[in-house]
């Protein structure tokens, strides 16, 4: 895959965004057309159907490398990436050849179609013709997850640079369903009307965390305040006689939430709504844990539909009567949204997310402090005069979240991380005290600096008491402040408690393990906020 492997190498050998953009743009100008299409597909999270299982891949790689499988399995967590581990253990190819990205994808397709006993031969034949980089990329095509430091934003910018087309129009074009094999480069990068494809969503507008005092935003009357609900962002499209629901991660989730199909019976075609999907019960939003059971399903059992029904709380109106409203000010969009939803019966499944009104910032801050009781994470602040922007642009949308809850806990288990954090102990299990005993209650992976992780890694190696596979039990000495956004009862956990978004707020070097918080304290938090 000469051009693609060169592109990967150039991307991998720089940390500068400008160099990455130029490398991508050059690829988009010069590489063969099908390679370009596949590259865009891969960088936006699409991949060819998995040809072989990762279990088989590991087995074959170990055999080819002449090492026992256990040794391969020991090396994998240290490398942190399966595709890379395979490419590193295999003996150098006797006869590396250059094949395009498309040719390798077609070869993978043929392997997928072959009888199971022939797939091994197909994969080995491919490895025998690849250098280390090609092998890594080929394995990545199989295992998926093409995260190589290219964000969708970066790719879109490079695409705009290479084609001379408008970046926002390209971003819109790349969303929704398209197939690298069924389209052409010209069709993919052509500018079209937004409604030429009924299923295509608008890029989501994203908010930035508010770090300065809210007074810095000026006059409160210039702003719309709303609850920041703890569900998942969704975009509901009613177009062409049907409906589509998209998540913020640009997954099509229509089938996971069949309740929202009813919206099409009550709202006109040519409507696109941005809102929050929440499980609803007793006339109020339910904790995120309730929604978790609904995620990632192609079909939803009746029982679950009855136990955890969802509603869409509408934030914004992006399209009305087939007209793209995004350039209009929020005050205008919001008024049209309210008018559209006014008087809608409950079975439509869509409500207006209420505005939170207060006479001044201080009063609004007091309301914000009630957010957790209302099952919200805080407030959203949106400038009433602002258009609906593409992506995260600072200035118009702010998330003003509550300060997280926190407890001090002691680390009891440690495990090595993956990828960039391979070879460092970064995944920790924490415990609180229950009398003399330590009760594990959460894991956390983030919040510390690389330097702190390196220091803890050295410490873990010297304070290991026992090993359970990749997990090390350590002397319970290091204390951390664990911050989290929510707390719920959970029969699946030993402590009976599950946290939302736990992370390490700081390393409490000043605090001995004898002074960490107690299980009783956690239960009190659960009683108040659960």
């Amino acid at each position: 895959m000469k051009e693609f492997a060169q592109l990967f190498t150039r991307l991998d050998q720089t940390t500068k965004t400008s160099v990455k953009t130029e490398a991508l743009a050059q690829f988009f100008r010069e590489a063969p057309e099908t390679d370009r299409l596949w590259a865009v597909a891969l960088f936006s999270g699409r991949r060819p159907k998995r040809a072989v299982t990762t279990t088989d891949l590991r087995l074959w790689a170990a055999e080819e490398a002449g090492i026992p499988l256990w040794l391969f399995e020991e090396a994998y967590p240290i490398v942190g990436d399966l595709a890379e581990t395979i490419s590193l253990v295999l003996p150098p190819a006797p006869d590396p050849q250059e094949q395009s990205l498309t040719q390798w994808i077609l070869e993978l397709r043929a392997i997928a179609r072959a009888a199971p006993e022939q797939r091994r031969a197909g994969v080995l034949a491919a490895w025998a013709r690849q250098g280390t980089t090609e092998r890594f990329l080929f394995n990545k095509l199989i295992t998926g997850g093409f995260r190589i430091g290219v964000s969708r934003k970066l790719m879109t910018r490079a695409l705009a640079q290479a084609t001379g087309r408008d970046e926002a129009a390209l971003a819109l074009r790349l969303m929704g369903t398209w197939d690298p094999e069924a389209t052409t480069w010209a069709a993919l990068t052509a500018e079209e009307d937004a409604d030429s494809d009924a299923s295509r969503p608008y890029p989501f507008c994203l908010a930035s965390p508010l770090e300065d005092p809210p007074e810095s935003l000026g006059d409160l009357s210039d702003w719309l305040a709303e609850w920041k609900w703890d569900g998942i962002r969704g975009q509901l499209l009613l177009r062409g006689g049907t409906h589509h629901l998209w998540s913020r991660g640009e997954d099509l989730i229509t089938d996971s939430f069949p309740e929202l199909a009813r919206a099409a019976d009550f709202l006109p075609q040519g409507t696109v709504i941005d809102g929050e999907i929440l499980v609803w019960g007793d006339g109020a939003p339910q904790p995120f844990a309730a929604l978790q059971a609904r995620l990632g399903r192609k079909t939803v059992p009746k029982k679950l539909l009855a136990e955890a029904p969802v509603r869409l709380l509408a934030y914004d109106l992006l399209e009305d009567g087939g007209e793209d409203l995004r350039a209009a000010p929020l005050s205008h969009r919001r008024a049209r949204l309210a008018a559209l939803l006014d008087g809608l019966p409950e079975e439509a499944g869509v409500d207006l997310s209420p505005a939170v009104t207060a006479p001044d910032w201080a009063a609004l801050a007091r309301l914000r402090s009630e957010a957790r009781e209302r099952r919200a994470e805080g407030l959203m602040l949106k400038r009433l005069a602002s258009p609906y922007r593409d992506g995260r642009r600072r200035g118009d949308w702010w998330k003003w979240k509550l300060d997280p809850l926190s407890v001090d806990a002691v680390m009891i288990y440690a495990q090595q991380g993956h990828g960039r954090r391979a070879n460092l102990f970064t995944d920790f299990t924490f415990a609180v005290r229950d009398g003399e005993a330590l009760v594990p209650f959460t894991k956390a992976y983030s919040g510390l600096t690389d330097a702190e992780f390196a220091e803890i890694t050295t410490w873990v190696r010297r304070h290991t008491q026992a090993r359970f596979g990749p997990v090390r039990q350590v002397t319970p000495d290091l204390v951390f402040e664990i911050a989290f956004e929510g707390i719920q009862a959970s029969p699946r956990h030993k402590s009976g408690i599950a946290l939302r978004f736990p992370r390490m707020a700081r390393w409490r070097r000043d605090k001995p393990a004898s002074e960490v918080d107690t299980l009783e304290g956690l239960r009190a938090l659960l009683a108040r906020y659960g």
Partner: protein
Amino acid sequence: MTDPVLRFTERGMYCTAADAYVDPWRPVPRAIITHAHSDHARPGMGSYLCTPLTAALVRHRLGDVPVQALPYGTPLRMGEATVSFHPAGHVPGSAQVRLEVAGQVWVVSGDYKLEADGVSEPFEPVRCHGFVTECTFGLPVFRWDPQAQVAAEMNRWWAANAAAGRVSILGAYSLGKAQRLIAMLDPSIGPVLTHGAVEGTNAVLRGLGAFAPATEQITPEFDRARARGAMVVAPPAALGSAWARRLGPGSEAFASGWMRLRGIRRRRGAERGFVISDHADWDALLRAVAETGAEKIFPTHGYTEIFARHLKAEGYDATPVPTEFGGDDEAEAEAGA
């Protein structure tokens, strides 16, 4: 059953017959030192026995300490033991320690590599009954390309930077790796400049006729405009520092065996990672172990348990030994690898 030649103690590897420790990590009266890296040659020993080159480097690092120099291949009687040094190929002056007691021969490898690097005395296999071996890179994912190939990559990178008017900054451990890399550079591309820590070692080795290439230290008076197109060799800590930024627009690279892993390359944040190590790779470790003919193998720092398990499966009597060389600690070993 005879007593083992070495015992593994809290202070380090102790040879009872010689009443001396090999690379001890706590102060002891008599220390036998494999090489001058800081995790092997520590301060506070009553006396140091090492090769002449290591002796000079130990004095450079630790000051006026009592050092006795013993050339390679020269046996020295210490109590009931006979001690000799044999090239380990790790860095200039580095040695394996051969200890013979009542017909039993044990060898402590120190750190080593098999490939001749042009600045260190090339590794010599030593037959023995017991072999204490490092295994910093004791995993089958570690395989090094030949030095000439890495040299070509490095010089291409430098030449491209020089053509664009940028300075190239190469991060490498000051003792050993830095001199090896400098010797691999093509001086026709431009001047080779050094950080003071690297130049200090260069000067010691030059004084002993052990290092030839011309280098120029970047002193506070140095005219930084002259750094354009130059290669700067500096300790890893200098990468990304204010010191490096003052050299003008440039590109940074890190040279280490750990650069074989993408995750670690990304964590270091250097633009380029050259995979080159002064430690043996997986295949070389296995070859070195086989060539000693030893039955008892003691893997020390690195992936000791994994390596020992593999050796056992291959029929060796292998026991991992905890040491405090960089600890069992890749994060520290990373700097010197």
